């Protein structure tokens, strides 16, 4: 039971890292990234190859995976982020497909569609959990800083953002790069947890899963992304029987959310001391009213 729980938490953390990046890029900056799985794949393969072929220590492999994924975002983002969001969305989609194709066909290096087996299971919660928490903390700080405000300005209205001296292109690039780093890190951890990697693990289904988490939790809230990652990673594990229908439900859920409540679960609500306090206060006020009504009703 304990091992099972550890497994779920590990998967949650890995997904969370990838979702954090997506939350920043798509949620806060408004650039729709359809191909997160591609970045995960880069992180996973580079990290795995470093460990297995270069016998690098785990930390170095992880860093290499992170950097590779982050650096790829630069040439990819340069032409596409200057244009309308549609171009970027399709470019990321094409990118993920391209990575999968490359991986499948560079058999000598990547093992083709059979992938890389027997990766040492170096991912443990003692490393993963603090790293994940640190990343959540860092992203939260960024989002509440003036840079975060500039990202949101870019999302809300690019022309107005430019008029207040926000370098729209630069902020999109930064978000894209950070997203690359986080996804690459997630990929590295993933490779060293599952023990093997194959191109089929990094297809549309994975990208979809991750984007759905961001949408579900609320694109404008890091807390939302965290909560959604927890729920949507944990839930399917428990409901494993309905796996095939899971994506069908996701599709319906996404449309439903967009039509009914595009802010997602959390909207723009962030978990801070201030917001917790005000939540507690309103709960108390509600309870008091309920109490009063009950007793007035009886008397």
């Amino acid at each position: 039971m304990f091992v099972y729980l550890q497994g779920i938490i590990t998967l949650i953390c890995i997904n969370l890292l990838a979702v954090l990046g997506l939350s920043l890029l798509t949620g806060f900056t408004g650039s729709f990234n359809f191909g997160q799985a591609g970045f995960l794949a880069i992180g996973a393969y580079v990290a795995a190859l470093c460990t297995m072929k270069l016998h690098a220590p785990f930390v170095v492999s992880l860093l290499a995976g992170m950097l590779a994924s982050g650096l790829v975002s630069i040439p990819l983002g340069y032409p596409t982020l200057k244009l309308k969001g549609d171009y970027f969305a399709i470019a990321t989609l094409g990118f993920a497909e391209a990575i999968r194709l490359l991986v499948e066909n560079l058999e000598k290096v990547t093992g083709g569609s059979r992938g890389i087996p027997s990766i040492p299971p170096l991912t443990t919660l003692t490393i993963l959990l603090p790293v994940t928490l640190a990343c959540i903390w860092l992203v939260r700080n960024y989002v509440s800083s003036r840079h975060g405000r500039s990202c949101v300005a870019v999302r809300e209205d690019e022309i107005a953002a430019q008029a207040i001296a926000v370098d729209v292109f630069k902020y999109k690039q930064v978000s894209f790069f950070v997203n690359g780093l986080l996804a690459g890190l997630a990929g590295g951890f993933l490779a060293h947890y599952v023990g093997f990697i194959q191109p089929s693990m990094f297809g549309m289904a994975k990208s979809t899963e991750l984007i759905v988490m961001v949408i579900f939790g609320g694109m404008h809230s890091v807390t939302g992304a965290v909560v959604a990652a927890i729920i949507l990673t944990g839930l399917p594990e428990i409901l494993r029987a309905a796996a095939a229908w899971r994506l069908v439900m996701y599709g319906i859920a996404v449309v439903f959310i967009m039509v009914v409540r595009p802010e997602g679960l959390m909207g723009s609500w962030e978990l801070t001391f201030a917001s917790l306090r005000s939540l507690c206060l309103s709960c108390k006020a509600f309870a008091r009213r309920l109490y009063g009504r009950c007793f007035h009703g009886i008397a």
Partner: protein
Amino acid sequence: MGLLRIRNMTKNFGGVKAVDSFNCNVQEGRTQAIIGPNGAGKTTIFNLITGIYKPSEGEIEFDGKTITGHAPHQIARQGIARTFQNIRLFPDFSVLENIQAADHLRSSYSLFHGFLPTPLRRRQEQASRAHALELLHLVGLEQRFGERARNLPYGHQRRLEIARALALEPKILLLDEPAAGMNPEETQGLMVLIQQIKDQFHLTILLIEHHMELVMGLCDFITVIDFGKEIAEGTPEQIQANPQVIQAYLGVEE
């Protein structure tokens, strides 16, 4: 010596000449207006000045430096701030955050400080918040600092947009139809506000307007354009008496 000098500026959109060899000089410290019938090219001129469009021909000089073809955010940084005809606030932000988003002088900390809660960052955030509240007080919105910008009534949204532009500490403020949709009372209030901020911040003002009381009441100098070309220039008295202006606006009497 003009603060803003526009020389022979032309803008073509496909086959349409939206702006045609436009010339304009805005002296420092003036309140100047560009007026003309709808579709004359006024907002296009603003968009050209602020870098949203690149001129097909001609040059724009600001504070002695050429800004033709520069990126919009760079031009904003040079000291040109603007408001928009169709109010472009950040709807999801609070009133306060809208202003803070524009304050790059008070909060200028680097990406490094963006990721970590350093003392420098805390100080700058406090300064920017204080500055934003000051500006909100100036436009009479400080009580509503926490509200979502999209929930503000129309007149207040316009004021907020002006306050946001001021956060940039600009040298020149471009106002695109600031009194659009306002009743006479609100227009009066706006005129008072514009004069107030002009005096307080030593601004140069360039505005596009259709409300003639505002234009005639506030401005030192007026440029009239039609079909993208300037047809008259001068003081309010001169413009009011100019037959070409009357013809362009009102048609010729038979």
